[in-house]
């Protein structure tokens, strides 16, 4: 299941009828030389079955159980939203916390394997305020990984993006190594020139981190989900592969459509 922002987490339930109902149509022979309606409409039984597929997405049920349980009576459903009309001399648009990213090589198995995550997720994992209080664990089974690969998801020739994501990859590795004992980190990315000039010498010396100038190709796994991930990559013109417990994909940040339209409206670039 691919996680997408603001998408509901869906639980498959036994009695949810599954495939989408097909619209019945008249045959092609019946359509020639006349204008009879092609689609004939759902019969009632099919329509009800189709309607029953609806998941009725609703985040807060409005059941007020929290309100009933709250001893200090801090919860109040009647606190209204506030609407403010403000005037500004200047508006500056920044990226905010949407953290959208461009799609990357689907062969890397993001969304397919629970132990392939994005750099944004890894950053939350490393944060002391994150879901695991800063412990490095595999989202697949909660075990401490022994070997983590940080790989470039988008290997285009955007130099600035490559540089920032490579520096981020090294920094994340440094934090992960500090938090986890007996950990082996590998960074695989087509190292850009400015990274090699400015940072490579220093990064190379970090104990436990191996930096490989290469390009990740695909991630595979055997039959059982418990097997380690097999990463295939190319380096120095050779095809190689190596097993990992966790793979972190470096993503390319994208501006969310909302901000895009706001920036268009205000004719103002995003900082």
């Amino acid at each position: 299941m691919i996680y997408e922002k603001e998408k509901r987490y869906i639980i498959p339930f036994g009695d949810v009828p599954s495939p989408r109902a097909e619209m019945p149509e008249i045959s092609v022979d019946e359509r020639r030389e006349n204008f009879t309606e092609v689609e004939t409409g759902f019969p009632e039984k099919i329509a009800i079955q189709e309607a029953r597929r609806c998941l009725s997405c609703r985040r807060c049920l409005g059941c007020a159980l929290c309100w009933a349980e709250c001893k200090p009576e801090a919860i109040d459903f009647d606190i209204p939203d506030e609407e403010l009309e403000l005037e500004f001399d200047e508006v500056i648009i920044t990226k905010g916390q949407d953290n959208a990213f461009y799609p990357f090589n689907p062969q890397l198995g993001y969304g397919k394997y629970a132990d392939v995550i994005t750099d944004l997720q890894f950053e939350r994992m490393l944060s002391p305020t994150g879901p695991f209080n800063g412990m490095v664990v595999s989202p697949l089974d909660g075990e401490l990984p022994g070997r983590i690969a940080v790989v470039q998801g988008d290997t285009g020739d955007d130099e600035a993006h490559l540089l920032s994501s490579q520096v981020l990859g090294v920094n994340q590795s440094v934090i992960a190594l500090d938090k986890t004992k007996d950990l082996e980190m590998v960074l695989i990315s087509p190292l850009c020139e400015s990274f090699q000039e400015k940072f490579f010498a220093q990064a190379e010396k970090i104990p436990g981190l191996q930096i490989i100038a290469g390009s990740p190709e695909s991630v595979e796994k055997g039959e059982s989900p418990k097997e380690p991930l097999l990463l295939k990559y190319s380096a120095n013109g050779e095809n190689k592969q190596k097993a990992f417990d966790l793979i972190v994909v470096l993503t390319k940040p994208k501006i969310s459509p909302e901000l895009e339209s706001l920036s268009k409206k205000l004719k103002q670039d995003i900082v």
Partner: protein
Amino acid sequence: MDDKTVLIVGGGLDGVRTALEQAEAGAQVTIVEKFPTLGAERIPRDRLIRPEQAFMNPDLDKVRDHNNIRILTYSDIKKVNRDNGKQRVRILKHSLRVDNSKCNDCKACIQVCPVNMFDDFDEGLGFRTAIDHCNLTTSEYNIYKEDMPVCQETCPVNLDIRSYVGLIADGKHLESLAKIRERLPLPGSIGRICPHPCETACNRQYLDEPISICFLKRFVADVELDQGVEPVYETPEQKYPEKIAIVGAGPAGLTCAHDLARMGYEHIKIFEALPVPGGYLWVGIPEYRLPKKLLQREVDLICNMGVEIQYNTRIGKDVAFEDLQNDFDAVFIGAGCHQGLKLRIPGEDEFEGIIDCVTFLREQALGNLPKAKGKLIVIGGGNAAIDSARVGWRMGFDEVYILYRRTKKEMPANSWEIDAAEHEGVILQYLAAPVEILGANGKVTGMKCIKMELGEPDDSGRRRPVPIEGSEYIIDAETIVPAISQGTDLSFLPEDHNLNLSRWNTFGIDEETGATNVPGVFAGGDVVTGPDIAIRAVAAGKHAAVGIHEYLRSK
């Protein structure tokens, strides 16, 4: 002199840093952030760090305590307006629904909350409950309540899809239809032809396939028809005397009329150039997709509320536009896009047998076309092209071609329409473009085409087609229908109309109210947006109805 006021949109790392810079320079700063907390604790991307430096952001504390900085978290920007050098911004600050000064963090609420969802703040790694905090140290408790589900949010008219689908599941079909009619006066028509953006957004697709939302709407409309139930529209006690003129009985105009009638306006008159209602729904959507009988019934229901439609009346010819402005208190223009654009290739104006898709579909719908003979070529890749081809095939043309310069993948028409056309035997030629129209004795005999290949992506992200030299070929045909795009026909406006027009000859309006720059004149639908889907025209009609109501009540 007052301090400079600055709005920072986004409370991420950049937002916090910029806010601090601006505040230090003496500006009054406001930060607006969508999440209930600022999120500037990030790992640097521009320098290498030591592990203990990670996530340290001294700026964050400074920003929180700064006297010149106001932090608006859990807030959305609703509207922006430029007003002589100032930016007027409307911000909606969502209620946390928790008085955090009373909260003692006992976690009782999150223990009992029955709703789990992906935690957006943690990039979906964990769960949060409907009432929760974003993280342990920096955030306050809040109840996450979306304004509406994603399908409803995506729908241009914000139909309450969750309810009406649920009512169908409960077997309460007529109640479901009543629910739809609260926001959409043409359920049977829209339920047949809508390209349903709601289904594209449906969360069910992450499990298997989206719900068939659109056809369910059609289903309940059909149930009413089958059972012979006559719906009753209630109009309020409070009546308003103002007269409102509407130009065009298309989806935008009909909806605007419907909504105004339901608000209590009694004098609404629609001027329609054609002898039939529905606008493009009647003369652009073929009968096999939307039976006229059904459309006529839905229009009749609107007329039953006291809306008058005057047919065969072209503004600018039969009635002057100025007369509308003088005789009525408000005017809504929903004239649509009824002019087919030209190919601009040699031979186009020389021979008989070239007919643009808008005219072709209209004249067919009105029964004015001669009997089909020979072969037909349709040029273009939109829904109008597919409709023209499928109509041609039904009229009895021996062979029907569609020529499109890119591939099926780039075709703007709905995929299911393309499949249906192929299924019926329409011949689709991809990567082909017209070069010249050939003819003899004043009549079209065929068309010279050229093969294309896809080159580099253009501004729209689609790969640009490039002709392959020397690959010209000829298709014989007696009729050619260009369906490349449609434009507005604004010939009904007087020369000194003073209305703001875009360079595409569409109206510039205030999106929320449909108001043009001329007081009392409103516009909406394709005449504002260019050729677009019907449901967005319906939405424009709704917005304009509210705009007109506000305008008339504040006069």
